[in-house]
C-alpha cells in the first residue's frame, strides 16, 4: 500500500469536507439505479451462479457456493442412526440460537409448549449480536405502517411477498414494545420520545437504536429471558439432518455435538429452523460482516426435506465493510454512520453517491468508483473509498460519535485511527442473505407440514434487497410468530414413526442427476488458514 498516496487523498478529502458536508447529493432516478445495479452489483454477475440439478428449486440459479452445498453429500449414513430411542423428546424443537430462535423459544414456552433450543455454538452467537445500526418501526406521528410498507417494498425491488411484508410492518411497533417490556434499552429523549434516524431508502426517520450495539442489546436480553424461562438449551450442537415421520411431516433432527462429534436424535412435534445467514460461504470471494457460524445450514436442511427456497440468488453486500486495516477487513461499519451525516467520498474528495441510497445501490456505486472510474484508494489488500466520518461532528457537534456510535469509535481506535478526526476506508462486504426458505405468514413452510422457519433463513419478507433495520425487526416479528404457531400446532400434531428415508432418496436423485462430489453439508463452520503455505490445499474442513 502506498501510504503517501493515502495521505494525499486524505488531504483532498479534508480540503473539501466543509463543502461536501453542506451539499445535499442528488438522488438517482429509478432508471439510473437499474442501470448501475445491472452493471456493477454482484447479484447480476451471472457467471457466478449455476442452476440446481435436483430438489424443489431444480432449474433455478443460485450462487455456485450454495449449489455445491445444496447438492452435497449428507454428513450421516441414515442406516447408522438409531431413531427408535430419541435423546430428546419435546413439543417444539428450535434450531438456532440467534434473535429469531430465542424469540421463537420464548413465545413457544409462554404458549405452554415443552420447547428445546439447540444451537451450533453458544446461545446468542449469531448475526443478531453484530447488528449495529437499529430496528425499524413506524411509530412516529408523521409515519405509518403503510409508508414503511412502501419504503420496504420499493427498496426490495417490488419482489417481497405482500402478506409477509404486511405482517412485518404491522407488527413492528408491537415488536419494539415487546422488547422494551423485556427490558431492552432504546435511545430516547428525556420525555421518552424514541430517538430515530434515517436508514438507506427510508422516507421517514424510523430507525430505533441502542447506540451502535442495537443487536447486542437485543440479543443479550433475549438470551437472559430464555434462561429465566428455564428453556433447555443444547449448545455446541448442530442439526445435520431433519427427521420426518412416515407421512413426510417434520418430526425432529439429527444433531451433532460439535466437540465430541457424537450424534444425537431429537424428536419433536414441530420444528423451527432459525439457523441464520450465509456470509461465511464468502460468495464471489467477498469478505463478510457475518458471524462465524453463518453457513446457510437451514437452507440445506430444509431443501433436503423438500422445502422450497425463495430468491436464493440474491445477497446483500453492505456498502461499508471496513477495507483498512487488514485485521478488520469486511467488518461492518454501520449504516448509522451515514445516517448521522458521513458521506462516501472518492480518492479526489468527490462525493459520488447519495449516502442514503439503498444498500445495493450504494454498494454498486462503490464498486463502480473503484473499478471502471478508477477513483478508489489502494489499501494494500484491495481497494476502498472514503467514508468521511469527521462530517458527523461537523454536523451534530462534538461528543456525537462517542455517544451514538461507540463501537465504531472503539473498533478503529484499536488500530490507531480516530474516526472523529480521520475518514475511514470502506468497500462492500457480504452482509445478508435476502433469499431463503419460503414461508407462509405464520412462519410455516408450505410444503413440509410441522416445519417452520424464521429469521435470516427465510426468504421473501424483503424481496431482492433489504433495508437497514428491517432484519432486526423480522427476527422478532417472525421469530415470535413462528414460536406461537409451532406451539399451537404441536397441541394437535401426532407424529408417526421417525424416518430418514428422504436422505437416501435425495442422494439417489443426486446420483441420477450425475452429481459427483466429495463435498458434505451442511458446512457448519468455515475453515481459515490465512495463507499458511503448509496448510493450503489440504482440503481440511470442519
Amino acid at each position, binding site marked *: 500500500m502506498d501510504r503517501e498516496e493515502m495521505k494525499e487523498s486524505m488531504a483532498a478529502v479534508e480540503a473539501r469536507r466543509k463543502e461536501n458536508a453542506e451539499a445535499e447529493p442528488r438522488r438517482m432516478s429509478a432508471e439510473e439505479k437499474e442501470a448501475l445495479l445491472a452493471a456493477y452489483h454482484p447479484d447480476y454477475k451471472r457467471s457466478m451462479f449455476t442452476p440446481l440439478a435436483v430438489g424443489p428449486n431444480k432449474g433455478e440459479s443460485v450462487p455456485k457456493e450454495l449449489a455445491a452445498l445444496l447438492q452435497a453429500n449428507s454428513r450421516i449414513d441414515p442406516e447408522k442412526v438409531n431413531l427408535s430411542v430419541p435423546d430428546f423428546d419435546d413439543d417444539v424443537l428450535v434450531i438456532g440460537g440467534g434473535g429469531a430462535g430465542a424469540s421463537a423459544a420464548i413465545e413457544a414456552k409462554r404458549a405452554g409448549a415443552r420447547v428445546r433450543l439447540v444451537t451450533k455454538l453458544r446461545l446468542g452467537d449469531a448475526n443478531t449480536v453484530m447488528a449495529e445500526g437499529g430496528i425499524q418501526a413506524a*411509530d412516529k406521528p408523521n409515519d405509518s405502517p403503510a409508508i414503511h410498507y412502501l419504503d420496504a417494498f420499493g427498496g426490495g425491488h417490488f419482489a417481497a411477498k405482500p402478506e409477509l411484508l404486511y405482517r412485518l410492518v*404491522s407488527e413492528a411497533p408491537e415488536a419494539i414494545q415487546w422488547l422494551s417490556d423485556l*427490558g431492552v434499552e432504546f435511545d*430516547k429523549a428525556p420525555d421518552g*420520545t424514541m430517538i430515530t434516524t434515517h436508514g438507506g431508502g427510508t422516507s421517514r*426517520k424510523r430507525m430505533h437504536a441502542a447506540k451502535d450495539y442495537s443487536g447486542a442489546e437485543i440479543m443479550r436480553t433475549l438470551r437472559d429471558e430464555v434462561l429465566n424461562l428455564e428453556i433447555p438449551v443444547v449448545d455446541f450442537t448442530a442439526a445435520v439432518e431433519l427427521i420426518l415421520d412416515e407421512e413426510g411431516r417434520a418430526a425432529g433432527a439429527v444433531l451433532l455435538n460439535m466437540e465430541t462429534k457424537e450424534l444425537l436424535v431429537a424428536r419433536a412435534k414441530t420444528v423451527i429452523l432459525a439457523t441464520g445467514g450465509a456470509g461465511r460461504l464468502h460468495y464471489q470471494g467477498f469478505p463478510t460482516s457475518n458471524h462465524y457460524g453463518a453457513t446457510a445450514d437451514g437452507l440445506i436442511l430444509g431443501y433436503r426435506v423438500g422445502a422450497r427456497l425463495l430468491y436464493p440468488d440474491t445477497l446483500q453486500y453492505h456498502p461499508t465493510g471496513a477495507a483498512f486495516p487488514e485485521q478488520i477487513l469486511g467488518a461492518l461499519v454501520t449504516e448509522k454512520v451515514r445516517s448521522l451525516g458521513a458521506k462516501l467520498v472518492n480518492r479526489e474528495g468527490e462525493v459520488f453517491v447519495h449516502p442514503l441510497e439503498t444498500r445495493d445501490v450504494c454498494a454498486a456505486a462503490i464498486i463502480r468508483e473503484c473499478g471502471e472510474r478508477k477513483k478508489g484508494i489502494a489499501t494494500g489488500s484491495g481497494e476502498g473509498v472514503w467514508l468521511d466520518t469527521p462530517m458527523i461532528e461537523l454536523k451534530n457537534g462534538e461528543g456525537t460519535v462517542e455517544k451514538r456510535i461507540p463501537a465504531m469509535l472503539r*473498533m478503529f481506535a484499536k488500530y490507531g485511527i480516530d474516526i472523529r478526526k480521520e475518514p475511514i476506508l470502506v468497500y462492500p462486504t457480504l452482509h445478508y442473505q435476502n433469499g431463503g426458505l419460503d414461508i407462509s405468514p405464520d412462519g410455516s413452510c408450505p410444503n413440509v407440514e410441522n416445519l417452520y422457519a424464521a429469521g435470516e433463513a427465510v426468504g421473501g419478507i424483503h424481496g431482492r434487497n433489504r433495508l437497514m433495520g428491517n432484519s432486526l425487526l423480522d427476527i422478532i416479528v417472525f421469530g415470535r410468530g413462528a414460536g406461537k404457531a409451532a406451539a399451537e400446532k404441536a397441541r394437535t400434531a401426532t407424529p408417526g414413526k421417525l424416518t430418514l428415508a428422504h436422505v437416501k432418496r435425495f442422494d439417489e436423485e443426486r446420483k441420477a442427476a450425475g452429481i459427483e462430489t466429495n463435498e458434505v453439508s451442511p458446512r457448519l463452520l468455515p475453515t481459515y488458514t490465512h495463507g499458511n503455505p503448509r496448510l493450503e490445499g489440504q482440503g481440511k474442513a470442519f
Partner: protein
Amino acid sequence: MENTVNIYLYGKKYEVPASLTVMGAMEYAGYQLVRGCGCRNGFCGACATIYRIKGERELKVCLACQTKVENDMYIATLPFFPLVKQVYDIEKISPEEQIMMQLYPEIYACIGCNACTKACTQGLNVMQYIAYAQRGEYEKCAEASFDCVMCGVCSARCPAGISHPQVALLCRRLNGKYLAPKSRHLEDRVREIRNGDFEELLRGLMGKPLEEMKELYNNREIEK
C-alpha cells in the same frame, strides 16, 4: 517473506505473520476453532484471552479477534467462564435496592481491588458500575456497563466471586423496562394498529398494480 513473530499458544511455539490477530494466528497455526470464536468483530465476547509477554510481569487480557499478535506473546484462551446467572421473573421484580441483595448479594463483598476494571477487554470502569449497582443506581450502572460484551474476564479476576456482566445485565433490563421514560407515541401507535386504524390504507396499498406502486415509490416524499 512478510514480517513474522513468535507466539506461544498454550505454551507451544509458532511462527506467524505479524499482521494477524490472535484469532487469525491460531487459525494460521492450524487450529479449527469451535470454542473461543464467535462474531469475530468484537461484539459477542466469545474469544476472551489472557496473555503475557515473555519477560514481563503483567498479565494482560484481550479479545482474540480484536488484537494483533506481538512477539513473545504467551497466549491462553478463556472460551468459557462459569458466571453466576440468577433466574428471575422480570415482570415480578422491581428496581429497588433489595433486588441486588436478593439476587447478587456478593457484590457487597467487593473489596475495591479494581482488578475487574483493569481486566475489562472493553475498557469499561467495571468497579464503578458495580458500585452503582450496590447503591441501587441502576440507571447509572446501565449506562456505565452498556458496552459490555459479557466475555467474563472481569469475573475471572475477581477475588469476591462477583459475576459483573450478569449484575450489569440485570441493571440494564431494570432500566429499560422500569426506569427509562415511557414512549407515548409508541404506545399510541400500538393501540391504533390493534384498533385497525391503518388496515384500510395498508390493504389498499397492497392491492395496487405494480406500475402504480413504482410511481408511488419513486415520487414519495422523503423526510429531511
